[in-house]
């Protein structure tokens, strides 16, 4: 594996082997000294052109737990505000000695560009509304550890799918691992054309909820200005929010995932968010292990 850019072409055995490694790293993270020297001397650069404290922290925690050094780049107050191009920024970071770049960028495809320009390994830390592969892997790991595996599970992904890289990553990885995925959203938040996606879609959450094993809630982008995509938040909550009433309609063993940060009272009610079947904190912990697995896979072998 040279880069991790997308879940679209990821095969089942490749995904499962990363999840197996992540299981091993969870054990490492559970030790009194949760750190191994596996990537001593390697340098991981986090290039976050779009702010995301959580994802950046998770990658940095993963890199440090593997004893890699980290370089951190953020555009505010940097050369980007002076008009430096993405290409020049990337080549500069590479010249400082980075072996791998985690790239988060508003523009779709930016990590692919970086992989073309640089000799570094590249991990897509989220590009536009396109892909966020480590999020999908940590979600799969969380489901696997909670329910034993994804084969035959019914997973509903609910909310702002059209503008969600998390949804696009999970839409491909979950079916690869054997799950049956339904996208559930108002028509204005479903992708315009899902031809060729291995998923079904619906705009009626109440009709679907009783059959789901996993409810995957997406963050409603209340901060997105301009585009008016649904009439009001209260209408959204009424039709698509995981309220206590809907939580009661779930199967007993069903679990709830959310990529965070949660809007309590919008896509998920406060009480549901604190229920033990809501696995958001497991997702966060698993995220570090998954990212360790990815970094180790990309940097732990013969340099290419």
């Amino acid at each position, binding site marked *: 594996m040279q880069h991790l850019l997308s879940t679209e072409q990821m095969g089942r055995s490749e995904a499962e082997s990363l999840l197996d490694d992540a299981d091993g790293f969870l054990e490492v993270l559970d030790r009194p000294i949760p750190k191994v020297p596996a990537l001593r001397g390697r340098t991981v650069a986090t290039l976050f052109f779009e702010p995301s404290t959580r994802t950046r922290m998770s990658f940095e925690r993963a890199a440090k737990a593997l004893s890699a050094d980290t370089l951190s780049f953020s555009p505010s107050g940097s050369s980007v505000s002076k008009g430096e191009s993405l290409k020049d920024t990337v080549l500069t970071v590479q010249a400082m000695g980075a072996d791998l770049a985690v790239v988060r960028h508003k523009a779709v495809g930016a990590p692919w560009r970086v992989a073309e320009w640089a000799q570094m390994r590249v991990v897509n830390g989220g590009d*536009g509304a396109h892909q966020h592969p480590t999020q999908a892997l940590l979600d799969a790991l969380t489901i696997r550890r909670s329910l034993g595996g994804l084969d035959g599970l019914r997973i509903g992904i609910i909310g702002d799918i059209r503008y969600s890289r998390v949804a696009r990553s999970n839409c491909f990885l979950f079916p690869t691992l054997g799950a049956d995925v339904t996208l559930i959203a108002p028509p204005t938040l479903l992708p315009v054309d899902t031809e060729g996606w291995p998923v079904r879609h619906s705009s009626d959450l109440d009709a679907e909820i009783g059959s789901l094993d996993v409810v995957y809630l997406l963050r409603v982008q209340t901060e997105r200005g301009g585009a008016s995509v649904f009439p009001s938040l209260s209408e959204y909550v009424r039709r698509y929010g995981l309220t206590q009433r809907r939580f009661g309609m779930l199967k007993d063993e069903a679990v709830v995932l959310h990529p965070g940060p949660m809007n309590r009272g919008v896509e998920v009610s406060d009480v549901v968010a604190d229920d033990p079947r809501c696995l958001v904190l497991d997702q966060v912990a698993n995220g570090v292990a998954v990212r360790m697995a990815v970094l180790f896979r990309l940097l732990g072998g013969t340099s290419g």
Partner: protein
Amino acid sequence: MDSVLIVGGSVLSSTGVVSADVLIVGDRIERIGEGIKDETARVIDASGSWVGPGFVDVHTHLREPGQEWKEDIATGSAAGAAGGYTALVAMPNTDPAIDSGHLARFITGRGEEAGLVQVIPAGTLTMGRRGEQLAHLDDLWAAGVHMFSDDGDTVADAGLLRRAMEYIAQLGGVVSEHAIDPGLARGGHMHEGTVSSRLGMTGIPAIAEVSIVARDLALVELTGVTYHLQHVSTRGAVELLAAAKDRGLPVTAEVTPHHLAFDHQAAAATDASYKMMPPLRESDDVVAVREALKSGTIDMVATDHGPHASHEKDVPFEHAPFGVTGLEWAAAVVNSVDGLGLDQETFFDRMSLSPAALLGLADQGAPLTEGAVANVVVFDPGATWTPTETLSKSRNAPYFGKEYTGRVTATLYRGALTYEMESGR
């Protein structure tokens, strides 16, 4: 006087397509006939080639004044000559925009200085292309502007467009429209469809073009202006055009080489060489514009040659500006399109005669006749080649490294060789 003898070609002449030699002396066509001998003439071997009037492009962006790092009138002219062109319309979305007569005269003058093609300025419809008040239309007309356009933007205000059309109709000019509804296209970077949905990119729906064409055609019916529709990309627009032509409206349309050659799947790799406005559409739209060019519903090929510097295009797709270059490969691409198979007469009609007629050009786009000004191209429809170099300042084209059939081997503008393919290339 210098003379050039084009030997053994298939010549589009005023008496039809004939096998003949063409002798050019000074700036004129001296003779067309078989077995012409001239010891002093420079000889061009045209066996197997088509010889006809130089191509005319009603839609190029030469970027001068204001963006000379992308292109200027001299380099754009050189690229045009290499592509077989003898006349280019310079679109007015420069900086400053060509909204007054003195700016139009500057363009014409710079074209004459370069001397490689006839550079014809287009003028804007509104001041500064801002879509607020009419440009100096009379002044532009007096400076030789025949085609008016706010290219790069649609005139969003239908009332303003109506007044521009009424005014230009009485002048006898052409309104050339970049038909994309700004609201429907807002935030979009590629065609709205399977590819944009998969990439999570905001799309530009086909209806953004179709809805503006429908509005404009109603205004054409009202005002009687001669209307030219730029870069048709959708089946919906083709159908509206066909209906308008059936009703006898004074409407023409162009299609670009890239819309003939590629569909939106080509943009899936997010290579900004495939980013242009309007975007590459569905394969069914590509079929529609090909058929329309063949049948004549679409009258002509125009390049929408849109140079951008490498540093502007070598960025993520959404950050790249719209536009691709095309002057040097347009004829080759049109000739290579699957199933199009234009014969020599139709090919020259779409590349030269129709655009020249739209612009009312005197010495361009006419079948070759003795005594006429020698604006001539030699095009070998069987030659295969792979573009690797360009005379443009910019390289933002999706054609590099792909093989095409059909190549311009020589171009003459006013009797002078402005391009001759190096032998052995």
